[in-house]
């Protein structure tokens, strides 16, 4: 099992750092899956997470100048590591002006991701800052826990409003209530609602647009038959939603959510070279 990678381009480094910062805001511990072409940050839906799950996918070629990976076995050419993304975020934080950043899987006394940042210095040799981030190697028998979640059979799929706006609305609502209701219909309308004994607040968004999905057999999705005005709704933990929105450092190219009434809300945030899916289950 070997892994080594290198970033020399500052723009790529900043981009990668931003992705890691987002992940760090969403999960205290998560799984890093390495394949030949991609990196995945995965959080599976355990009770400990409050049932949320996350699937974030990056093409390594868009970030790394060098990327070499040898998995656990030839026919399972992948590596699954458990790590604290905040550590990685911190290691990259002070690499803003780095000449190069190398990441390597090591196992001196215990498995680590070693992040070596080469910084410019006035002397002939560079300044090197090394961070050893402890990781856990996840054995192959547990890999099934981390499969890509399938798109749920949703009732409504709708594009999200401008994230900045949505974030400030949710942030203010967070002070008033622990849960928030997201409801939306196929006419591009979405409402965010909170309701307490003292107050209820609803924010209405319209003209958001609904993405069209085709199912595997090429037909239009089953939502075709649904009344366009009818709202699908789910009550979710407001903190989880706020974390998701607050963690976005860059505006996504596409942002949408799929609502399964009273069951789950599936958020999809797409950037040029990163895709993030986040599932927040409905509260009972």
């Amino acid at each position, binding site marked *: 099992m070997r892994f080594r990678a290198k970033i020399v381009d500052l723009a790529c480094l900043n981009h990668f750092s931003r992705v890691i910062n987002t992940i760090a805001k969403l999960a205290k511990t998560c799984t890093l899956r390495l394949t030949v072409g991609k990196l995945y940050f995965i959080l599976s839906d355990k009770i400990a997470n409050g049932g949320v799950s996350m699937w974030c996918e990056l093409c390594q070629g868009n970030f790394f100048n060098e990327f070499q990976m040898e998995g656990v076995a030839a026919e399972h050419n992948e590596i699954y590591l458990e790590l604290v993304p905040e550590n990685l975020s*911190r*290691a990259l934080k002070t690499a803003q002006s780095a000449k190069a950043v190398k990441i390597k899987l090591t196992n001196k006394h215990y498995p680590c991701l070693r992040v070596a940042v080469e910084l410019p210095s006035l002397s002939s040799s560079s*300044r090197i*800052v*090394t961070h*050893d981030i402890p990781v856990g190697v996840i054995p192959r028998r547990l890999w099934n826990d981390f499969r890509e979640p399938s798109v749920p059979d949703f009732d409504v799929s709708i594009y999200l409003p401008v994230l900045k706006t949505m974030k400030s609305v949710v942030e203010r609502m967070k002070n008033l209530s622990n849960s928030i209701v997201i409801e939306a219909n196929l006419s591009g309308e979405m409402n965010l609602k909170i309701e307490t004994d003292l107050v209820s607040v609803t924010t209405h968004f319209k003209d958001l647009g609904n993405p069209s999905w085709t199912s595997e057999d090429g037909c239009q999705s089953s939502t075709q038959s649904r009344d366009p005005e009818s709202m699908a709704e789910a009550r979710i933990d407001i903190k989880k939603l706020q974390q998701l929105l607050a963690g976005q450092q860059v505006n996504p190219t596409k942002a949408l959510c799929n609502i399964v009434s009273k069951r789950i809300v599936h958020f999809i945030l797409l950037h040029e070279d990163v895709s993030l899916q986040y599932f927040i289950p409905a509260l009972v």
Partner: protein
Amino acid sequence: GVLHCFLFLPVFGRAIHAIARISDEFWFDPVEKGLALRSVNSSRSAYGYIFFSAMFFQHYCWTAVSQPRRKEKQLSLPCRLIIKSVLPVFRYVNVLERNVEKCSIYTNINDHHITFQLLCKHGVVKTYNLTFQECDPLQAVFAKHVLLADVMIHFPTSQEEVTLSVTPMKVCFKSYTEEEADLPKTMLTEIQLNPDEFDYFQVGVDSEVTFCLKELRGLLAFSEATGVPVSIHFAVSGKPIAFSIDDMVLEASFVLATLSEVEKETASQQPPRSPQRQESAAAASGKAPHRESAKPASPGAKQEVTNVPRVAEREGRGAGGAAPAEEEEEVARAVPGGEAAESRYQKVRRHPPCSRWRALAGTERMLRFHSLFFGAVSCKEKDAVSHTRSLATASDTEEDFGTAPSSQV
């Protein structure tokens, strides 16, 4: 702001000429403490900075003006002048010396003018009215040389202890974790520096000392704010390590105990426990105007003070506004075989200002290096008189322009 000053001309003229070599325009920044001239070339590969303390001028009068347009009250007024317009004023420095009795500089931001007025012999008065462009302050865009704060920033703020390890070829700061059990869970950071990054580096023997970074952070922030380089003196593990900054008008010294080798080994062999720190008595002091001898421990202190160092007075310091004494802390020498302290470092008590600590000098096998800041800083004490003639100082008062570095220490 309005700036009046009468100055020693040839020197000022030569400063303008020096700056002129860098660029066609320069920043004229009068601040409360003096006048700064800065220039950067178009390719941003050269930066010049000359600061005249208020004492350079026969008369320096500067008034702050709050600028409603700006968000915060800006105490300084940076303005950009075209060198070509200013050079004629000071073109023939030798002639200036002979003919000009006095030069005054007035600025008035309201009508965007700077006036240079030369009072010459025979009653001749030459007045040059120049317009300037108000602009944002020129920020130092070039990376400062090794600042200790820039090194420590790589450690997380929660990092308690750091080990400094030196060989003649290498300087290394790395995080230190005492509890073996914690190791697989903790992120460890290590910074390697080349000795030639430092202004002065002298290492006689390989050495490794571990000290508490948290206690140092205050000095790091202070050093960064004042721009004064930090010098580090240390010997071997167990002996204290001293971080000091030393400037014309202030000095500061933080002395920290280091983990002794014996305790380090014991700690790793035995199940985790709080080891004793072998302490040497130490004191952190600022430049106190009063020299009091150290007072004995205040009642209620846990440890008995068995020894507090006396300090030799330093001679010939310039008067300059003394910085208020830094937080005085005193670390008592541990009572031999003493009881486990609740923190592994003996608890500190606040004391009234005590005499400055000099006892570190003269310890055998002293290892000492400075950090570079904007060129070599002489460690010789400047005497108060000569500095008025200096054209350049090492201080770079970034904080005047609200460009406090974002780094956290």
